[in-house]
């Protein structure tokens, strides 16, 4: 009896010890990570800390080199370590900063940010789509930048239009920077990415109007049997400005549309009353029935790959996407040339701020250094090149003012963070005409009277979630022409109304009136 009691005690003691040990081990490793702000090596790049002078001097002089941390979305680019080391070398010398990065998969990125900040982890700045501004602010994840920008933000202001910063203000405080603001902005998503070489092959005019676009699609349908003329689940969205001046009011869950009148006043309407969208939907339906849009468009996977493989001639594509994809396109289909074509309305307005933003987290203790880092990227072509393309001669080289990547070894930070026309370099195979057309994209565009307006969702959170759900359910169906819009519109309108669309519209009207009056 005593023996078995002993063996039983021994076993449970063993299990208990095992668990406590586990906690202790976890504890000690955790302490090393979280406590060692300055002293710890960057994750997964302990080799680089031996290379940089910055790394080795860190523990002794915490006042000199400040480490700022960020979580980037995606996967760490292959071959990043030497580049990051060089960046840190220069950062240490220029502004006394060391950049430490960790990575989170795209689909978990927002999640991870919230969790990290909630648990009080060390994150100094984050990236996100600029439309995340109000959500982040509501969750108190981000902090105001006014002070730090006043001190160190000059290079940023020099390279991005000051008016765009208004779009990142809440309650008068600057809550983020529109980091890609200096890039084509007007109606930038009402644009296609298409095969220019095919246009030349069949002697077609540039698809810059709806009629010309139709001619192009018809030619492809007739002559290229293996290709789908256009693969897009939002064909109507692309061309809608050609049918009317109405566009979507951001932040309203796509439930409210607006148009800018000639006197620069703003009229709101429920999204189902947008002439532009309705007419465009009808056109998309025609195209679907003509066979220009594939039947299973809603369940086809990734459309850009299809374009790059030569399975289709056209898809959605914002400005600059042609240059970004040209390399892959040429490799797969020799001789293929990509181009972008926007579909502006009668008047061009700039309401977008570039779509990307960088934010300072509310738990950061290094606001100044963060802004200094951002400014550093825009301080010189040299810095910009180092950050975006790598080490010259090692990762890339410049030929005829075009960037040629030297090996698959290094894949650059994608352009979504600091894309800027003042510094941007284009890859080989891109014509000067294209670059010109990108630079001229915003020519003749007026700043929208709504620039700077951010819809405050406080009063209509519930309705927003509901309309968003309805919109996400119906939008692709309407915009891809897969169902006759006449059939499905009544249902859609009914649901939108039931979801509280009117309440949102009234709230938006109030907010806009206040916003415009304050100007």
């Amino acid at each position, binding site marked *: *009896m005593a023996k*078995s009691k002993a*063996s*039983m005690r021994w*076993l449970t003691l063993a299990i208990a010890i*095992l668990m406590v040990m*586990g*906690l202790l*081990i*976890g*504890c000690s*490793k*955790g302490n090393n*990570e*979280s406590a060692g702000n300055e002293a710890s090596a960057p*994750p997964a790049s302990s080799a680089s800390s031996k290379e940089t002078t910055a790394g080795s001097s860190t523990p002794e002089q915490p006042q000199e080199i400040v480490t700022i941390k960020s979580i980037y*979305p*995606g*996967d760490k680019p292959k071959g990043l370590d030497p580049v990051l080391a060089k960046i840190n070398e220069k950062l240490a010398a220029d502004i006394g900063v060391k950049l430490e990065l*960790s*990575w989170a*998969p*795209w*689909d*978990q990125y927002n*999640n991870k940010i919230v*969790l990290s900040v*909630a*648990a*009080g*982890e060390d994150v100094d700045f984050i990236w996100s*789509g600029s439309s995340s501004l109000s959500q982040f602010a509501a969750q108190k994840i981000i902090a105001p930048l006014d002070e730090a920008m006043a001190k160190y933000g000059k290079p940023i202001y020099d390279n991005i239009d000051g008016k765009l910063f208004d779009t990142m203000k809440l309650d008068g405080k600057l809550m983020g920077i529109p980091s890609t603001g200096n*890039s084509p902005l007007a109606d930038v*998503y009402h644009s296609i990415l298409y095969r220019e070489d095919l246009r030349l092959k069949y002697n077609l005019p540039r698809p810059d109007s709806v009629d010309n676009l139709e001619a192009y699609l018809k030619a492809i349908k007739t002559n290229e049997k*293996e290709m789908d003329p256009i693969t897009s689940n939002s064909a109507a969205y692309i061309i809608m400005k050609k049918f009317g001046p109405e566009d979507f009011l951001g932040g309203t869950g796509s439930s409210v549309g607006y148009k800018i009148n000639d006197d620069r006043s703003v009229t709101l309407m429920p999204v189902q009353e947008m002439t532009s969208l309705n007419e465009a939907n009808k056109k998309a339906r025609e195209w679907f029935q003509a066979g220009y849009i594939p039947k299973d468009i809603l369940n086809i*996977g*990734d459309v*850009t*790959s299809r374009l*790059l*493989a*030569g*399975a289709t001639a056209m*898809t*959605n594509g*914002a*400005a600059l*996407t042609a240059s970004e994809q040209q*390399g*892959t396109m040429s490799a*797969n289909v020799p001789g293929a040339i990509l181009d972008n074509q926007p579909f502006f309305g009668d008047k061009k307005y700039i309401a977008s701020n*570039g*779509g*990307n933003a960088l934010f300072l987290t509310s738990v950061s203790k290094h606001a100044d250094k963060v802004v200094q880092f951002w400014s550093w990227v825009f301080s010189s072509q040299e810095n910009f090149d180092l950050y975006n393309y790598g080490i010259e001669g090692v990762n890339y080289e410049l030929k005829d003012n075009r960037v040629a*990547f030297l090996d*698959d070894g290094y894949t*650059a930070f*994608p352009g*979504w963070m600091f*894309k800027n026309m003042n510094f941007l370099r284009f890859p080989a195979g891109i014509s000067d005409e294209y670059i010109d057309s990108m630079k001229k994209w915003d020519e003749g565009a007026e700043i929208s009277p709504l620039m700077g307006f951010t819809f405050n969702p406080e009063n209509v959170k519930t309705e927003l979630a509901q309309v968003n759900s309805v919109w996400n359910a119906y939008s692709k169906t309407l915009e891809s022409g897969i169902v006759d819009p006449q059939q499905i519109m009544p249902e859609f309108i009914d649901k939108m109304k039931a979801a509280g669309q009117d309440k949102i519209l009234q709230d938006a009207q109030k907010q806009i009136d206040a916003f415009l009056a304050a100007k």
Partner: protein
Amino acid sequence: MNTHKYEHPLFPVVNYMLLTLFAALALIPFLIVLSGSFMDEKEIILHGIRLIPEHYTFNAYQYIFQQNTGLFRSYGVTIFVTVVGTAVSVLVTGALSYVISVKQVKLRDALSFFVYFTMLFNGGMIPWYILCVKYLQMKNSIWALILPMLVNPFYIFLMRSYFKGIPEALRESGIIDGAGEMRVFLRIILPISAPILATISLFYMLAYWNDFYLALFFVDKAELIPLQYHLYRILSTLNYIASATTGEGSAVAQNIILPSESVRLATTILTIGPIIFVYPFIQKHFIKGITIGAVKG
């Protein structure tokens, strides 16, 4: 079990045919995945995955192995986590399940409810994350990959069911003979529980092997990244870059189409591979019958 003398002669034929049909239905998609993982991405996009592709290429596998040199290391991490995790899990789960299966334990229904309740209600990711990172300090610890999923209440109920079926007499005779509860458990109960032990071990093994979630949240250090998370990261990037139709995600400068479909298939194969080798060893426990009567003697 020798009941064959009494069968209708057609029965085994129908049986084999049905099973072959089901097995084929299960196997064929897998073979398609296998062949797809060796297909060129362009061909997949243009013609879809096929059972017998026109050209073979190792592109997808190359891409995976090139992405991060840590792939072999991650196999090591995963193996450690799986072996240790499974062992501790089966032990802890088995012990608790057994306790709530014994009729003599008055609290067994209460404990069962205690366990079951956790399957229903859950506070969400935020408090769980804060607990593990802030209070338990589990960030970047190998135990972060094991402890949070140590016990699955589902398996507790599976084992409890099985233990309930073991006659009380067995346990009682052990106690009467002077053995302690632990000894009875280890020496008498477990040896005749091979089927359920094998089942639960297999399930835990699969769970640990397949998990990327814990690494996603708790591991930054490259040395601790398990296999699935490694593969998941590769896929996640590909998914996003490939699906981005707006300016918010631009392709990186590579001269091949990002092999997203074929990589996805290749990761499936890389995941299954090792398990298929282990499985046959466990299978025999589902195949042998046991006779409790013999053990009793």
